Every structure is written in structure tokens, then in C-alpha cells.
């Protein structure tokens, strides 16, 4: 099947899920994921670190960024923007045939339980919203009926703050002190007394007054329709003692632990059931209530949990961007380093496969700047008959032929095609081990950096064309020049002020205050920094419109990103960093150098800002 015809053919194929049909869709997704080989995911956000922000152009992931820095920028984006759509497609691969079950979930971070909202506020890039609007995205549906969610960390906070009575297993206490025995015997006599009264009263018919008086005296309350009694406790040990005591009295008593607000136990509530069946009924009731509560609290995150617990390989396009979002929204706040992020993510998704990485295997495909480009290249260059089979009922349900979430089908298609081309699984079974890229190869994701699911951004198109590898040792960040200068002018002026600039170098403006310079010959950067440090450099810098020209090595830039000094022009952030840590920077010669890509065409043209 041709990729281009896919758009029409797939129209309406993706099941659109909002609040109203979420519970049902979740059930179905569970079975679909269970029977699938692989799960493809894709999300639509209100902004991304691929697109540049108006205020701070240097926040965009740039070719000069090391994986660590790129992660920090992706982290910043994941913390600022919101996911509005999350498409999931569990699929089975049978040679050239793909059985796909695509879903598209509409999300909105509403505060559903009036306790904790998933996010206080979020940023929107208008270009993202506009392009979604052009696709006919229904923002009302998303905001009115979008599914909310809480991350795992947020859920545990809710549990702590809004505890519900639970059934707790009994663990026998090893040694009983005298005080414990006294406590137990007191509880026992109380419960037995109460139990007797309840049994008696159920046999006699009294007036309302006597009934209520009896309740008052015996301390009987109602749990649903069943009689119950609260026993106050002040420690976990006492809870265990009560549970132990109650279990010896009678089988028809069900103890529930009522937790206190900060997490500790407050009381044990014992509920009297009339029979064995009634007891089972009560247990299922409690279980159902808990499940309902969980679903309400977790919301969309159940989908993430389903995918996570299935241990199926997950494929995506631009995994770094998508998974930083997933981690920050559905799991926990993002850790400060890439390494910690990878460890943490791996605990949730054991096997993530980045299509970008897989595409690298087919040389020219690495040039493709987005999913559509990759697909059309494949279609032009190879004959890969991939047949995507979709569940028939989905197409019928969606008469509106919505194309939302079709990206996930394109990812699925691309994967199937690559799979066939690279002969990853000749017998329709996924080979274990070597061919499925595991998360160890995750850092490879950074090549190519600026791919996007959106239509290509014009300025990024040729970013990688002249990209060449360069060591971060050869990079220098320079600031203190006139803010109105263009990169060309700056380069010309630099050539006149110092001999190191007579040699070949590339210059790129990071924002209007700061430029990055890469020297092709190693050692020059170091020489420049040393000379600038000695102070004799600036004397003849008359051509530069301000005299305070300053420079630092890559390490300072890395530190700026690590310490999260995002909310300023790069020059100010760099100043801030060197002001704080003069010592560590002078020792920058021993820094570990990393490979970065330098794209001569990725200049941010300031006249275009």
C-alpha cells in the first residue's frame, strides 16, 4: 500500500477516546495490548523544544548540544508544555501484514478530584495550536471532555492526603508485651459485646428511640447498610493487634483500616456481615470502590500503566521528546541528568525503540526531517508492500473520518516497512536480543536532532546538510558585542581583532546576546580563552561596538543548562555561571570533551527574529 494514499484510507480508522468512552476503551486496549507484538505511540503537544521559543531562541535543541544538554532542553519543554493527544497503536506483525488497533486519547490536565491537578499551568506555542486547527482539531472536545490524569508520584500524594479505608493483611506480632495483652483483651470484650448487641437487635423489634439509644451506647454506626464500629488506634502495632483480635472472634466481621491524613492509621472500622456471601459481597464492593477511585485518580495514566506492565516493546518517533513528556506527566518529575532519566524510564518501559535510530540503517533516510519525508522516501526508493489491517468496527464508529492520531499509524507503517527492509523478522516473530535496539542505544536518538512530526519548519530544513563532527573543546561562546549585529558582520569584525580568528571558524548566533564559535583547528579555542583571561585581549577591540567582549568554553554552557538558568538571555546566564564558579571554570581544560555536530546552516538569523 502506498504511504500517500494512507491518509485517506486511514481516515476514521483511529478510535477517538474522550472522557465519555474512556472506561470502555481502556478495557479494549488492555486486550489489544496483550495480544500485540509491539505498541506504537505518538503524542501531540502544545509546544516542543524543536520549535524555538520567541523569547529565548537558544532553548531550541541545537546541533551543538551534547546529549546531556539536549536532554536538559527536552526536560524544559516537557515541564512547560502539555500533551493534548496521545495516540497508542498496539499491533501484530505478520510478514508484510500488520494488524493494528489504533487509539487516540484526548487529554486535558483538569483537576478532577479537587485535590491535586496534573499541572498548575502550561505553555502553548501558537504555531502548534494553529497547525492543529488546520487539521480540524476540536479544541472544545479536548478541553471539555479530555481525559485528565495524575502521575505516579502525584497519585501517591493523593493517597497520602485523601485516604480511604482499606483491607489490610494480618501479620502476626512476634512477641506480645503485657500492655499488648491488656489492649487486646479490652478490644476483644468490646467487640464481643458489640457483636452480641448487633445480633440481638436484629432479632427484636424495638421503637426508633430505643434503637438509636442502643446504637449510641454500643457505638454502632452504619457502613453502607451494614452495622459497623470504629476502634481508635494510635500506631501500626495497635492496628495489627486489633486485626489479630478481631480475626479470632468471628468470621463475619470484616476489619477495615482507616488511615489518618498524614498517612498513619487513625482507626480500625469493623463491619458486621450477615453471612459468608454477604462478606464476599462486601469484599467485592470494597474492591470495586478502590478500583473506581484508582481510575478516577489515575485517569489516562492507566493506559501508560497498561503498556508498561505488558512489557511489550514500545516504538516512537523522536523518542527523547515524547518520553521526557511521558516521564514528566505520567511517572514523576524529570530527574536532573540524562543518566538518571534513562534509569528511571527503563523501570517503566523496558524496551523502547526509536524509529529515527532504525532509519539510520538506511543511509539516505537519516536526512528525512520528518515522518512524512521518511515515508515518501521509502515509497519512492523501495517497493515494500505493507498491508495495514484495521479493526472494522473502528471505521464504522467514526463516521466523521477524523484523522487525529494518524501519526501513530504512519509510525507503525514506517516500522513495518523498515522491518521488512532490514529483514528483522523473516518469520513474523520478533527476534529477541540483537536486532531490537534496547535503551542502551538510547543516546543515539540525538541523531538526527531536529526531526519533527509537524510540517518542516523552513529554517530547519538544511540544518544538517553541512553538519560535521566537532569536539566541544573547539567551541567557544562569545558575548558582549552589539545586539544589533548580524552573524556575518560579527564574523568580519572578529577577523580583524585577533589572529585566532584569521583561521577557519564558524559562527552561529545563539540569541541576540551570544554567539557560538567553532574552530576547525583544535587548540585555538583554548588559546583564545587563555588570552581573554589574561586581559590584554580587549584593548584593541574597538571595532566591536562594546568593549566588554567575553568568552567561555563549552563547560559554562553546559552548566547554564544544568543549573536551569533558562529565563534569561544566554549571555546573562553565562555571566551568572562564571560569577558563581570561577574556580571550576579555570579548570575547564580537564573537562571531558564530547562530540557535537556543527551545522553551518543552522544560524539563527537575527533579522528574522
Amino acid at each position, binding site marked *: 500500500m502506498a504511504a500517500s494514499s494512507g491518509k485517506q484510507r486511514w481516515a476514521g480508522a483511529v478510535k477517538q477516546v474522550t472522557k465519555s468512552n474512556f472506561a470502555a476503551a481502556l478495557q479494549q486496549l488492555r486486550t489489544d495490548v496483550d495480544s500485540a507484538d509491539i505498541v506504537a505511540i505518538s503524542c501531540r503537544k502544545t509546544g516542543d523544544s524543536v520549535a*524555538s521559543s520567541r523569547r529565548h531562541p537558544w532553548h531550541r535543541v541545537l546541533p551543538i548540544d551534547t546529549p546531556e544538554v539536549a536532554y536538559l532542553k527536552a526536560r524544559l519543554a516537557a515541564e512547560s508544555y502539555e500533551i493534548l493527544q496521545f495516540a497508542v497503536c498496539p499491533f501484530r506483525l505478520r510478514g508484510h501484514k500488520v494488524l493494528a488497533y489504533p487509539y487516540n486519547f484526548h487529554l486535558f*490536565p483538569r483537576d478532577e478530584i479537587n485535590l491535586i491537578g*496534573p499541572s498548575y499551568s502550561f505553555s502553548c506555542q501558537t504555531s502548534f495550536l494553529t497547525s*492543529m486547527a488546520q487539521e480540524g482539531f476540536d479544541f472544545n472536545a479536548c478541553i471539555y471532555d479530555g481525559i485528565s490524569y495524575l502521575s505516579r508520584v502525584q497519585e501517591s500524594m493523593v493517597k497520602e492526603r485523601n485516604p480511604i479505608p482499606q483491607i489490610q493483611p494480618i501479620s502476626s506480632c512476634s512477641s506480645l508485651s503485657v500492655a499488648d495483652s491488656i489492649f487486646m483483651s479490652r478490644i476483644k470484650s468490646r467487640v464481643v459485646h458489640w457483636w452480641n448487641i448487633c445480633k440481638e437487635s436484629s432479632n427484636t423489634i424495638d421503637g426508633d428511640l430505643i434503637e438509636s439509644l442502643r446504637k449510641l451506647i454500643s457505638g454502632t454506626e452504619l457502613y453502607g447498610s451494614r452495622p459497623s464500629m470504629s476502634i481508635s488506634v494510635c500506631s501500626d502495632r495497635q492496628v495489627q493487634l486489633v486485626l489479630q483480635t478481631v480475626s479470632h472472634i468471628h468470621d463475619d466481621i470484616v476489619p477495615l483500616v482507616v488511615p489518618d491524613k498524614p498517612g498513619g492509621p487513625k482507626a480500625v472500622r469493623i463491619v458486621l456481615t450477615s453471612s459468608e456471601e454477604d462478606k464476599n459481597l462486601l469484599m467485592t464492593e470494597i474492591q470495586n470502590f478502590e478500583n473506581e477511585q484508582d481510575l478516577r485518580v489515575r485517569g489516562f495514566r492507566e493506559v501508560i500503566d497498561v503498556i508498561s506492565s505488558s512489557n511489550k516493546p514500545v516504538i516512537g518517533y523522536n523518542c527523547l521528546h515524547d518520553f521526557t513528556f511521558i516521564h514528566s506527566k505520567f511517572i514523576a518529575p524529570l530527574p536532573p541528568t540524562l543518566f538518571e532519566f534513562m534509569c528511571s524510564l527503563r523501570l517503566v518501559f523496558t524496551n523502547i525503540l526509536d524509529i529515527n535510530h532504525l532509519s539510520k540503517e538506511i543511509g539516505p533516510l537519516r536526512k528525512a526531517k520528518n515522518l512524512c519525508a521518511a515515508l515518501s522516501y521509502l515509497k519512492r526508493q523501495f517497493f515494500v508492500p505493507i498491508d495495514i489491517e484495521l479493526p472494522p468496527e473502528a471505521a464504522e464508529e467514526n463516521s466523521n473520518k477524523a484523522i487525529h492520531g494518524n501519526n501513530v499509524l504512519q509510525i507503525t507503517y514506517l516500522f513495518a516497512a523498515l522491518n521488512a527492509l532490514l529483514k528483522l523478522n523473516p518469520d513474523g516473530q520478533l527476534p529477541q536480543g540483537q536486532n531490537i535496539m534496547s535503551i542502551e542505544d538510547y543516546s543515539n536518538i540525538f541523531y538526527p536532532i531536529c526531526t519533527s512530526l509537524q510540517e518542516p519548519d523552513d529554517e530547519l530544513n538544511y540544518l544538517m546538510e553541512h553538519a560535521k563532527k566537532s569536539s566541544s573543546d573547539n567551541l567557544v561562546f562569545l558575548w558582549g558585542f552589539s545586539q544589533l549585529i548580524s552573524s556575518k558582520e560579527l564574523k568580519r569584525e572578529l577577523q580583524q581583532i585577533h589572529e585566532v580568528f584569521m583561521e577557519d571558524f564558524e559562527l552561529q548566533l545563539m540569541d541576540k546576546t551570544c554567539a557560538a564559535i567553532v574552530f576547525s583547528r583544535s587548540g585555538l579555542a583554548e588559546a583564545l580563552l587563555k588570552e581573554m583571561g589574561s586581559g590584554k585581549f580587549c584593548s584593541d577591540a574597538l571595532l566591536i561596538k562594546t568593549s566588554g567582549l567575553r568568552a567561555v568554553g563549552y563547560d559554562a554552557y553546559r552548566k547554564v543548562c544544568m543549573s536551569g538558568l533558562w529565563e534569561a538571555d544566554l549571555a546573562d546566564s553565562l555571566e551568572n555561571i562564571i560569577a558563581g564558579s570561577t574556580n571550576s571554570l579555570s579548570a575547564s581544560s580537564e573537562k571531558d570533551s564530547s562530540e557535537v555536530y556543527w551545522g553551518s546552516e543552522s544560524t539563527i538569523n537575527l533579522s528574522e*527574529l
Partner: protein
Amino acid sequence: MRNLPLFWARSQTLILWLIPGLRRFSSAAAGVAVKNVTRSNFEPALEDLRARVREADFVAIDLEMTGVTSAPWRDSFEFDRSDVRYLKLKDSAEKFAVVQFGVCPFRWEPSRGSFVTHPHNFYVFPRKELPIHGPSYEFLCQTTSIDFLAKYQFDFNTCIHEGISYLSRAQEAEALKYLSSKYLDGLANSFCNLEEHEDIPLGRTADLFFSERMKAKFQEWRDAILKGPDKGCVYKENADSNEMQFQTVFFKMRPAVFLDGFSSHQLNLIQLVVRKHFKDLVYICVVDENKSWQRVVYVETEEDKASFMKEVQQDLIRVEKRVESAVGFRHVVDLLASDGKLIVGHNCLLDLAHIYSKFFGPLPSSMMEFILAVHEKFPYIIDTKHLLNSSQVIQFLMKRSSKSLSSAFSLLCPKVSSDSQNSTSSTFVRFEIQADETGSSCFNSGAKHEAGYDAFMTGCVFAQACSHLGIKFEVHTPSYDLARNDKIKKYINVLYPGWNSGTVVNLNTGTESPESGYKRKYPAVIFANIVLIWGFPSKLKPKDLKDCICSVFGPDSITSVFFIDTTAALIQLSKEEFVNEILVLKDTLERENDPISVLHPLSKLLEGGKTCAANYDTYRDICAASASKVLFADQADSLGIRWKTKLGTGSQETREASCNETTTEVKSLVEHLSGVRANFRRQFKHQISCDDILDSLNVSKSLHG
């Protein structure tokens, strides 16, 4: 009705209660025909509105935004000095977007004895309309605000798909400069001499090869055109190794090559090649609907070249037109500002801040500058919230009930809001809403919290209040001037600052002054006595904090403790010296890690090693930063604050500052000791409204007083 002049023939007049028998609406919100304006009907609506505003006696406005506070601690507190409050206002106006703008002109019609109104509801969205490359706009949404808008059925689709875009004055100038320079560049480059452009060095061999190849290709293409009998034929590049194809297109009736798929560096090289080697080819950059296109055009002669350039120049004028249309919604704001009309808003300081930052330019750094700048644009502004608060007549009428717009509206204008039958009473001002029949599809019946309807309510409340203040609309000539009327003079240009500070903002003088009727309930906040502490252990409750400090400085040392959020607190001490003493003590304790300092009562506060402390100015600096982390402590971190204690630089300086601060007329005692809030560590929904604070005040008052 039938005998009315021509004007009425076009319009359908909806009279709410004046004339029985006309169409009447049942509920409060349903009766007002509000005109919805989007991209599609903006131009005619703007022309229409021009006339209405010109005739109007006053114009009521209202805005709906995507949010109010970018972080819980950005809410206004009693402990905020006026400069801090302005910083919070500025932050809000800079970060959030305006999504709806209500404009409602009111004109007194003596012949009808009523106000004629035209409520307009503009959907606004900061779309990028011009083909200027570069980053897109970005704005913040507060989840609760979006949810609030959704609750009142706000149509996000209309807003995002159809909202009217805008450019501020600064952006317009920039766009014009950019677009015309792009054109002029093209022109200049095409004409200028080689000498001036030798600065594009053909340094790399790759560049040389590329230039040579391009030269050959253009040669080939031109020759093909010249010798080909039909110039329109598609010329196909036959060099097999090359993917690029030159396709002949026509541009201004001349054969041209469309340059697609080249990098900007390559385009520069092409430009150089064309200029250097081809006298009859012109390189031109054309700004099109969405982006700019580069073309190389064939011109037959020098005269043809000249006439071609002229044609291109005419395009430039069209570009200017496009920029003008991209100005979009700002035309409405310009219209409001142009006539010096009386503008009426309800609690409108934030609205004005939004209007200024979106449509005029960046907000100034101080409240004073901002106020004067607003005053220059809008010379007459009435804040109905202030009017309702300060007029005793109206206070009496309102029976001191809630001062929200909708409750004021239903109290003061019951006839409009409930559409009741007995319309004889003369104390009520009459309103008529006019809607053109022609565009009836874009009318909806207004609803609460829709900008157009809110503007209408604001205007009604104002007119009614004027009547209560003794202005007789009936006896005035049609051309009387409300803005100069003595009866409301003292309310003009005095704004309610949007927080419970007991002050009002005077636009004429640019200062904040005490509100006349405000009853001072609490002793003044003395900012010099305040110490800011953040990053302390989360289990610490206000009570613990108080005990901790009292055990060092004595039981009377603390005047009040205010928790900004769970991670930070402002503590007002009874003496100014205590501020420095605490900072010094904390610093010493952290330096000396001996057993004595561990046992020191203050060390409880320092547990965890992340506790920082500073004076009030640091609080202001942190509020001034543009980041907005949810928790205050994270915000401080994100500024790169590395010190843990900011010691006063000198007592001299501190004293000087305190003189100014103590005179600031902001006051209150907030004994925020109930401790309820302290549990909510890392709570995302953490909004403390003024009411909450007052509640806890009352609680603590009964406890301690």
C-alpha cells in the same frame, strides 16, 4: 417604531422592558444580543464599530484571559508592597493571552429616553499572520482558568480557528521594516555593483564547484529560453547526477526559475553568480502568503529590467497593506484610544495591563511609569469596582453585598437583568440593545463571563450608578460630556488595584493613595521588619516557625508569620534589628558546625541544609524574575541564588530604605497560624484568595486576641 428614520429600518431594535409587546427574553443572560466578531466578519464589524464608538457617550470593555497567576505564590497577598504587586500584575499580563475582548459602546438617545448599546464580543488569538520567519508566539494557560472558561461554554474552537490576530505597535514597525527590507534587499542586490559585494568569499571548494555548476545551469536555461520557439516549454535538467530541476515558471509575465530546495548560503552564492555573470537575469526574493520565495527572472532589456523592478516595487505597497491587516484587533484598541472616549471597566487594572502589553508595547518596569503611560493612551477611565466601593449612595443601595460584577448588575439593574414587567419607575435607566438584521447569524444571547456580555453589564452598572449619583441623562443636551461631569469627576481615573490593600491607583498623578472609605482593621505591615525564609523542612508548620524564632528572640519578637506557600514564609518581626540579627545568627550557625550550634533552637529551622533567608528586597527580586515555578523555593533556585543567607550590606542603607517603606500605606496583620495549609506540601492547586486570608485572620484573632 415604523416612523423612525432610515437608520432604524436597517436595525432590529430589541427593547428589553420598555415596550411591552416586543420580543422579550426570559432569563437574565439570554436577552442580550451580543455580536460575535471573528476573522471572517472583522472588517465590516470594525467599520461598524468605528461609527458607534464615535457617537458613543462611553465605551465599556471587558477581557477574558487564559489565566491570572502563573504560580500559586504569584497571587496578591496582604504582605505585598505596591512594587511587588505591580511585578505580579506585570507577570500576569506578559505571560497570559487575551482570548476574548468585549467592547460595548453606550449612546444616550434623548428621543427614546434610553441608552442604545451595541455589545461586541471579539475572539482574539495571537496567530502568526505574517510570513516572518523566526520563532512563534508563546503564551501560558492556567489550567483552572481554562477549566473556568470551559464551564461557561467558552468556544475554544472559534477562538483558535477563527480568532482575530493582532500586532502591537512595536511589532508592526518591526514587521514593516523587515518585510520591506527583504524586498529592498532583493532590489538592491539586483542592481548594485559587484565591488560592494565581494565580501561573500568563495572560500570553500564546495562553494566554488556549486557556483560553477549554477553558472552552467543558468547559462543553459537562458539559452534554452532564447532559442526555444515556445518559451513556455518546461526545461528539464538532464544532468543525471543532479536531483535539482529548473522549472520555468512565469513571474510578472516573464520567464523565471523558481529556486526551491536551496540553503540560504547556496542562495547567496546563486545571487552572486547571477549578478556577476548574467546581465539579463534578475535575482529576486518575493514575499508570498506564507513564506518568501526566491526566483531568478529573465528580463529582455535594460528597460524591461527597469519596468520589472517597478512592478516589484508596487508589490511592496501591497506588503504594507498586508501588515496593516495583520495589525488586526489592534485597530479596535487604537479606535478606543483615539477619541479620548470615556472607557468603563470593572476591576480593570489587569485588563489595562493586558491591553498595554499586547497592543502598545512592553510594560514599563515601575507602577508609576505604567500608570502614566496608560493615562496617556486613555485619558478617561472609570473603574466600576471603585465606583461601587466608594460611593456611599451605591453602597447603601447594594446593601453591602458582594461587589462582583454580576451581583452588582442584578442589584442595580434588576429591570435589565430580570426583564420584569413594571417599567414605570424612573429611577432605572433604560437600555436598548441594537443588532443589525443583516448579520444575525453572528449574534448570540450573551452569557455571564463572556467578554461582550460582561462589558454590557459593566456599562449598565455604570450608567445606573451615574443616575444614582444624580446625573439626569434626560435633562442634558445630547452632546454633554460625561467625562467632565462634576458628579462623577472624583471617580474618573481612579482604579481599584485588584487587591485588598485599602489603596486606589490614581491615573492622573500616577500614585497609589489610601482609599477614602477603607476601614483599617490591622496594624501596618512594616516591610523593613520582614525576613523572608524559604527551603525549610516541609514538616515545619507556622506554629513551629514561630516557636523557633520566639525561643531565640523572646516571645514578643514576632508580629506575624505569613506562609507564601509550603516552602516559603515571610515573618514580620517586632523590631527592625531582629531582621539582621536573624540573618547573622543563621549564617554563624551554618558556618560553625559544632555541637552547640546543632543544639541551638534555630537549627530546627535549618534542618535539611536548604534553608535560605534574606530581607524583603530579595522577595521583590524573586517576584521580578520571569520564571514561574510552582513552588517558591524552586523559583528561588531557578534564579541561580547560591548564597544561603543574604546579610544586610549596612545598617545605614537599611534604615534609609525603611523610612520609605514604613510610609507605604499598606497594612495588615496576618496571623496565619492555623496551620491548615502547612500540610499541603507540593500541592499544585494552592491558591490563597483574599477571603481565605481574611478567614484565617478571624480565626487567629479569636485565638490570640
